[in-house]
C-alpha cells in the first residue's frame, strides 16, 4: 500500500522536474540508419582500404596475366636448342637470356610460372573440396563418427608431407600429376580442421535449430546453412595454401623429383642454374625472384584477408 503511494508521488514529481522523461517513440528508435552490409561487403571494403593488401593483389593479377600472355607472344619456344648461343646474358632478343642449351629463358621462365600457378591452384582447390566436406561432416556428426574421423586425420597429419611426396614421387614417377596428388594426400587436413572448428562453434546456434524444426535434413543444414557461414576462414586458408603448394613443387623440382625436362617449373629452372650460378647469376636470379615475388604476393594478400575476415580486428 505504502510503496504504491510512494511511486505515484515520485512519478508526479518527475513530470514537473526539468529532467522529465520524454515519451519514447518506438517506431523511430527501431529504424536502422546505417546501410546494411553483409560480412563479405564489410570485409571487402576493409580490404580495399588496405593499400598493402591491394598491391599484393595487383602483383598477383599481373603475374597471372604475364604467365598466360608472355609465352604466347614470344617468337621463341621452350624446347628448341641453339647450341651457338648458350648462356647469353639478357639482351634485346632474349629478354631473360638463354640456358645451357641455348633455350630462351623468357619463355621457359614464364612457362615455369604457369606450371607453378597451376600446381598451386589445383592443389588448393583439391584441398578445399576434400577439406570442406570431410571437416564439415567431422564437425557436424556426433562424437563417435567425428572422433574416429578426427583420429584418422591426426594420424595422417603426423606423417610429414614432404616424405609422402618424395615417396610417391619415387613410386609413381615424376611429373605434374604426381606432385598434385602427393600434395593433396595430406594437404586437406588443415582445411578440414578449420572447417570442423567453425562448425563445432556454429552448430548450436539458433538458426540451426530453426532449420531443424522446419524439417531440413542434416546435409542441407550442413551445406546450405553452416558451411556458407564458415566461408571467411575457408577463403583465407585456400589463399595461404596456394603459396605453400607452389613452394612444395619448387622444392621437389629442386631435388629432381618434379617436372621433367624439357618442361620446366620455376624449381627445375633454379635447380639447373645452381651449378652455374657463380658464372651466370641471372640464370638463377630471374626464376628465383619470380618464385619469391609470387609467393610474397600470395602471402601478403592472404594475411590481409585474414585481418579483413577477423571479427576481432573490427574497428
Amino acid at each position, binding site marked *: 500500500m505504502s510503496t504504491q503511494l510512494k511511486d505515484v508521488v515520485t512519478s508526479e514529481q518527475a513530470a514537473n522536474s526539468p529532467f522529465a522523461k520524454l515519451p519514447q517513440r518506438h517506431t523511430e528508435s527501431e529504424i536502422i540508419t546505417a546501410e546494411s552490409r553483409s560480412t563479405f561487403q564489410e570485409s571487402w571494403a576493409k580490404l580495399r582500404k588496405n593499400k598493402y593488401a591491394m598491391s599484393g593483389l595487383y602483383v598477383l593479377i599481373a603475374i597471372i596475366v604475364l604467365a598466360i600472355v608472355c609465352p604466347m607472344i614470344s617468337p621463341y619456344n621452350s624446347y628448341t636448342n641453339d647450341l651457338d648461343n648458350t648462356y647469353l646474358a639478357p639482351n634485346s632478343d632474349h629478354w631473360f637470356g638463354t640456358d645451357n642449351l641455348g633455350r630462351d629463358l623468357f619463355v621457359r621462365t614464364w612457362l615455369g610460372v604457369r606450371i607453378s600457378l597451376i600446381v598451386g591452384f589445383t592443389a588448393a582447390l583439391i584441398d578445399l573440396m576434400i577439406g570442406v566436406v570431410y571437416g564439415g561432416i567431422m564437425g557436424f556428426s556426433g562424437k563417435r563418427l567425428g572422433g574416429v574421423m578426427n*583420429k584418422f586425420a*591426426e*594420424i*595422417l597429419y*603426423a*606423417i*610429414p608431407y*614432404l*616424405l609422402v611426396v*618424395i*615417396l*610417391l*614421387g*619415387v*613410386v609413381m614417377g615424376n611429373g605434374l600429376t604426381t606432385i598434385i596428388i602427393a600434395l593433396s594426400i595430406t594437404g586437406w587436413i588443415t582445411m578440414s580442421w578449420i572447417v570442423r572448428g567453425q562448425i563445432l562453434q556454429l552448430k548450436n546456434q539458433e538458426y540451426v535449430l530453426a532449420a531443424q524444426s522446419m524439417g531440413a535434413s542434416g546435409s542441407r543444414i550442413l551445406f546450405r546453412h553452416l558451411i556458407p557461414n564458415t566461408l571467411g576462414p575457408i577463403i583465407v586458408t585456400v589463399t595461404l595454401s596456394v*603459396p605453400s603448394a607452389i*613452394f612444395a613443387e*619448387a*622444392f621437389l623440382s*629442386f*631435388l*629432381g*623429383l618434379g617436372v621433367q625436362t624439357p618442361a620446366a617449373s620455376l624449381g627445375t629452372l*633454379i635447380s639447373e642454374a*645452381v651449378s652455374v*650460378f*657463380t658464372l651466370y*647469376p641471372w640464370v*638463377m636470379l630471374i626464376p*628465383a625472384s619470380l*618464385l*619469391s615475388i609470387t*609467393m*610474397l604476393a*600470395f*602471402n*601478403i594478400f592472404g*594475411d590481409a584477408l585474414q585481418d579483413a575476415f577477423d571479427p576481432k580486428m573490427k574497428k
Partner: protein
Amino acid sequence: MARYLGGKLFNIIISLLVLATATFFLMKAVPGDPFTQEKAIPPEIKANIMAHYGLDKPLGTQYLVYMKNLFQLDLGESMKSQNRSVTTIIKESFATSAKVGAIAIIVSVIVGIYLGMMAALRHKKLIDNAAMFIAVIGISIPNFVIGALLQYFLGVKFPIFTVQGLEGPLDYVLPTIALSTLPIAFIARLTRSTMLEVLTSDYIRTAKAKGLSPHAILWQHGLRNGILPVVTYLGPMTANIITGSVVVERIFGLPGLGGHFVESISNRDYTLIMGITIFYAVILMAARFITDIVYIFVDPRIKVSGGVVKK
C-alpha cells in the same frame, strides 16, 4: 597428465606403424626391382642377389621380417653402397645434420622471439612494420634460394665465408642463416600476435599497478604467456628444419643425412630411402612429443590447476 601423454604416445606409435607399412608397400609397388636398371645380370647371380636381400620370399614374409628388424633398429643394408648398413650411414652422417639443425633451432627461437617482442612493443611503429615486412619476405623466399644467394654474395662476390664444406666454426654461419630464415619469420609473427593480446590483458595491468619494472613485466609475465604458441610451433619447426636441411646440405655440400637422402632418391636405393624416411619420422614424432611435454610445464594455467591437464 599420464593419460594425456599416453594418448599422444599411442597416436605417435600408430602413425609410425602406418608410415612404416605404407613405405614398405609403396617401395614394393615400384615396377621392377632395384637391380633392373643395371646391365643384364646373369639369372643365377640375380637370384643370389635377390636371396641376399630376402627379395625372393613372399611379400607377407618380407613384410614381417622388415617389421621385426625395424623393432630391433635394424634398417637393412644399403643396396647401392656395398656392405654398409643403413644404420651405419645414418649414424655417421646424422651428427653433422643434428649439429647444424640444433644451431638453427636455437638461433630461430632467440631471434624470432626477440623480433616478435620488439614488434609488439612498438606496435604500429616503424620497427613493427619493418619486422613484419621482413617476416613475410622470410616466409616467401624458399630456403634453397636464400642458400644460393648467400653463397653467391658472401662466398663468391665478397669471399667472407667458404662456399662448400664444414670445417671451421665460421662455415656454420651461412647454412644456419639459410635454415633459420623461415622459422625466424614464423616465430616472430606468432610471438608478435600473442604478445599484442597479452600486453593489453588484465594481469599485465595488475603487474603494472603493483609497481613492477617494465622489464620484469615484459620478460616474466608477458613472455611466459607469449611463448605458448611458439612452443606449439616446435614440432612443425623441426619438420621445416629437416626438409630445409635436405636442400641446404646439397647447396653447401655438407656431409649430412640430407645429402644421403637426396642421393638415395636419385639412386633409387630403396632400403636407404625407407630407412631415412622412418628415421626422419621418428625424429619428428619425438619433437612433437617433447612439445606436448614442454607445453605442460610452460603453460602457467595448467600448473595452477594442480598439474591436471584439462584437454
